[in-house]
């Protein structure tokens, strides 16, 4: 069964492997560029407050080179990989056998259906995990100075392209492909549905699943309006909202709202004589007026120190879904298929 699995799987596996190798090669070639720039700009080995400035300089210096291109490409690849694995590895795995009728040939060999699917699932999941894991591992190591300087690895976009989470997405996408192929029995339809499911998962994760998994901390602190802030208001109704960027470097800000002393979100109404186009006092007057409103900033955030904790939790959920879907597929192929 292992030979047969390899014989049928080798073309898509080698194609995906080649793409991954190209990316890994790019990362390997730019590795020295990253470490050298980090050293030259003084980011490597920096102390205390100097780090922030050195980090900015390092990121600036990195911008024009190949390194940042490969960084974006590698992140893009880790987002694309689950969709590719689901569509081209998973969806045709059973669907094509059902479509072309070859399932009748392979099921009349001396191998049970359950074992047939089990070996294929194991091989596909293993290959998907290996590919995604290798790329993510190399990228996480490669980008360590960048993540340190930008303090951005909790950013939802970066988070799913670091650590072990990509492994979870790749394996889940593969099993999603297999299960849809098994249920729909049509390769093309299974591919389309798989793409839809994988993309929905990738969108739902940062908005719904991750905040729920991370259990963000909520803090309320008085607002002083001496730093940067943004105002949007309607001059007719006086409705106004205030946006303040919380100073939480390295944390993931899930939500941030300006609230009044009662705890409700601040929506105005604004004093039209102090703020807005008809006010004469300019920005300072509006700033002073806002300062007198007794406003606070309510921030819901996940501390950056919980990076690996959250990685393991999200991976755990994805892994559990993969196992559940695999068991369902095995049951289906034995009991319900044809």
């Amino acid at each position, binding site marked *: *069964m*292992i*030979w*047969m699995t390899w*014989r*049928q799987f080798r073309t898509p596996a080698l194609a995906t492997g080649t793409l991954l190798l190209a990316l890994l090669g790019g990362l390997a070639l730019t590795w020295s560029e990253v470490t050298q720039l980090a050293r030259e700009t003084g980011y490597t080995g920096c102390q205390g407050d100097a780090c922030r400035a050195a980090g900015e300089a390092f990121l600036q210096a990195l911008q024009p080179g190949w390194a940042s291109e490969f960084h974006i490409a590698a992140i893009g690849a880790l987002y694309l990989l689950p969709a590719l694995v689901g569509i081209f590895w998973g969806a045709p795995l059973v669907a094509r056998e059902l479509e*072309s*009728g*070859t399932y*009748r*040939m*392979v*099921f*009349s*060999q*001396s*191998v*049970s*259906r359950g*074992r*047939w699917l089990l070996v294929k699932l194991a091989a596909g999941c293993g290959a998907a995990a290996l590919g995604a894991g290798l790329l993510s591992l190399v990228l996480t190591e490669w980008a360590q100075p960048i993540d340190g300087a930008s303090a951005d690895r909790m950013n939802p976009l970066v988070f799913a392209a670091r650590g072990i989470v990509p492994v979870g997405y790749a394996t889940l996408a593969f099993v999603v492909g297999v299960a849809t192929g098994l249920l729909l029995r049509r390769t093309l339809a299974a591919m389309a549905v798989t793409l839809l499911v994988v993309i929905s998962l990738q969108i739902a994760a940062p908005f719904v699943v991750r905040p729920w998994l991370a259990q963000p901390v909520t803090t309320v602190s008085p607002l002083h309006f001496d730093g940067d802030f943004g105002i949007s208001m309607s001059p007719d109704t006086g409705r106004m909202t205030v946006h303040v960027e919380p100073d939480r470097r390295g944390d993931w800000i899930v939500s941030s709202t300006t609230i009044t002393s009662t705890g409700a979100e601040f929506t105005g109404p604004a004093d039209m004589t102090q703020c807005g186009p008809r006010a004469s006092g300019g920005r300072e007057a509006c700033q002073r007026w806002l300062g007198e409103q007794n406003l606070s900033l309510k921030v819901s955030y996940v501390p950056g120190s919980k990076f690996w904790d959250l990685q393991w939790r999200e991976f755990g959920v994805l892994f559990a879904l993969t196992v559940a879907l695999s068991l369902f597929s095995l049951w289906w192929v034995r*009991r319900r298929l*044809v």
Partner: protein
Amino acid sequence: MTSALIADGLTKRYGRRSALKDCTLDIPAGHVVGLVGPNGAGKSTLLQLACGLLDPTAGRIEVLGARPVSGSPQVGFVAQDTPVYAGLTVADHLRMGAHLNPSWDAALAKRRIDQVGLDPAQKAGKLSGGQRAQLALTVAAAKRPNLLLLDEPVAALDPLARRNFLQGLMELTAEQGMSIVMSSHLVADLERVCDHLIVLVASRVRVAGDVDDLLATHHRLVGRRRDTADLGAGRALVEQSHTEVQSTLVVRSTAPIVDPSWQVDRLDLEDIVLAYMSGATGDGPDRVLEGQR
């Protein structure tokens, strides 16, 4: 006589549509059995139930004394339209067979591939229909099953490919001595290789028996028109047709018919099968003969 396949009240439904309904039959082992019937009689469904590709909705099926499961080393199956992996070469198919079957007979597979002139390096997707059928038969036979099920393997082949395929099948039975059940809606194909015949119409066995017996006990009677209610003991009416002056009957009778008022002719196998198939459509099931097993 041991049985290769026993079905008892076997039913397979897809939603409301019945592909096989309350089928009861007993196929003896050690024969090359032809399963013949019109399209939609349930032949394919029966064979797929027998190799475990399908699960019955109701009833019981036993193959070589056990409930069929797919992946059994005892049962080989060549599906309708003889599916093969288009992307794999002929040699790959043999390697697949060797990897997936503990009882694989590599020498037999190699010999058959040479015999039918298949190029091992050729992709199976590029084979002609006849070559594909030969490849599928080779893979199924080299597994060395005790029972080989063939579902209309020659339906899509031209006459020459058909003859070659049946020739290969006969060689296999002579060498290996495996039981074979082969379905077809063409009697001529079966006549060449089968020694036992089952006529299945609308999930019912119309007649079953050894080919020699069937040939010996069926007669066509032609005489002046008359009522056919009393044919006498040991005789059963299979089919009748009447004109103004003349009656033509197909009768099954164990004893020879000596009646000067009838002109008695022998029937060939195709005539017998056709008589059962057409006789079955007009008449009620009470007129149907159960074959002697």
